[in-house]
């Protein structure tokens, strides 16, 4: 129920944003995330954008996961 999906803001008019999720566009409210801007990746839940996705942190997590590969190789 607390499932939320990421999407990218394509356009914004007042408290309504057009967001792209996997090739489909949807309208969601940004009332709970007034700082959201066009170009931001946001997390959506039940018709609302609820959080901006921190791309730097996402890259760090990904880099860490990918780095583990070397350890896995190493230990064999």
């Amino acid at each position, binding site marked *: 129920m607390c499932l939320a999906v990421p999407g990218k803001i394509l356009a914004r008019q007042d408290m309504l944003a057009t967001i792209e999720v996997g090739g489909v566009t949807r309208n969601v409210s940004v*009332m*709970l995330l007034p700082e959201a801007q066009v170009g931001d990746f946001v997390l959506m839940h*039940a018709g609302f954008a609820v959080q901006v*996705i921190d791309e730097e942190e996402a890259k760090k997590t990904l880099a860490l996961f990918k780095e583990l590969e070397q350890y896995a190789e190493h230990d064999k």
Partner: protein
Amino acid sequence: MLSMTNEEVKKAAAFFTREIEKLASGRSLRLMEVCGTHTVSIFKSGIRQLLPENVELVSGPGCPVCVTPNEYLDTAIAYSRKSDVMITTFGDMLKVPGSSSTLAKEKAQGSDIRIVYSSLEALEIAAKNPGKKVIFLAVGFETTAPTAAAAILMADEAHLTNFYVLSAHKLVPPALRALLASGKSHVDGFLLPGHVSAIIGLQPYDFLSKEYHIPGVVAGFEPLDILQAVYMLMLQIHDQTARLENQYSRIVPKEGNPSACTILSQVYQQTDAVWRGLGKIPNSGMSIREKYQAFDALLNIPIIVEETKEASQCQCGKVLRGLLQPSACLLFGKACRPEHPIGSCMVSVEGTCAAWYKYGAGRWQV
């Protein structure tokens, strides 16, 4: 967001599971995943089977539908029988059994019950049906509650006079506190819900480490997120420390979402609430503030609700506290199945009983 090849995922997962095994070194440990979305991801990706036998994942009270008590459903069902009322609800509430009926049964018998994906749709329905009293069944934790609060603010602005909310919102940290205070649910570490935390931030969980000396890690929902979070918990357990850590930093800032929290507390105030299986928990629910009372279904639409009865053999209460594995329930997979649920834990796809039924039991030692 995290694009990785299968091979890369496998290798990272192998690293985590190997390290977890080393850190656990023969001790029996129970980690609780609080959130139903975690439960589903754990079962789907087979994480329970990947972990060493002495590290068990136990589901907690984190499926909003599952913890909604019969009394709430009985009230919603009673409302649905009124000819001037229309019920708007998330789809997963439909099959949840009340004392003697379900919303699905009432719908089949002609009650006007509409499934919506957001509170905004409920608002639209209210605007289009001025002759009906439109009640939105507001169920969900801190992730969902602000969306209902926002709808109330919008209804207020639009001067809608036929939109009402029946609130059963619940708050996660007070439930964890109650679980620990009961002293019965032995937990060595918590995997904390990522999307709830995206709203409330980290501070509300401080008591876990400070008062109970139990480590907690806010976790994302990809299988590797969960494995990393388990690994982070294991590092702490191994070092005999207890901290609150954040594995899901790409989504969860320390302070959460202050705008959403402001809207939430503008419309709602904390109140005691009854949880299925956990009973009444102080300050764990949300009620509509006096200023927005005009939107409170209970205060505006009189209703007589039948006496609440619990399904006598359903063990949901114990399942939700991590005290009993679903397969130990006599009805599991027999009288109680997803297509014919007896208890709420079998209804929602996020329910522990439903996950066990769908994905196979896996191990669990109590």
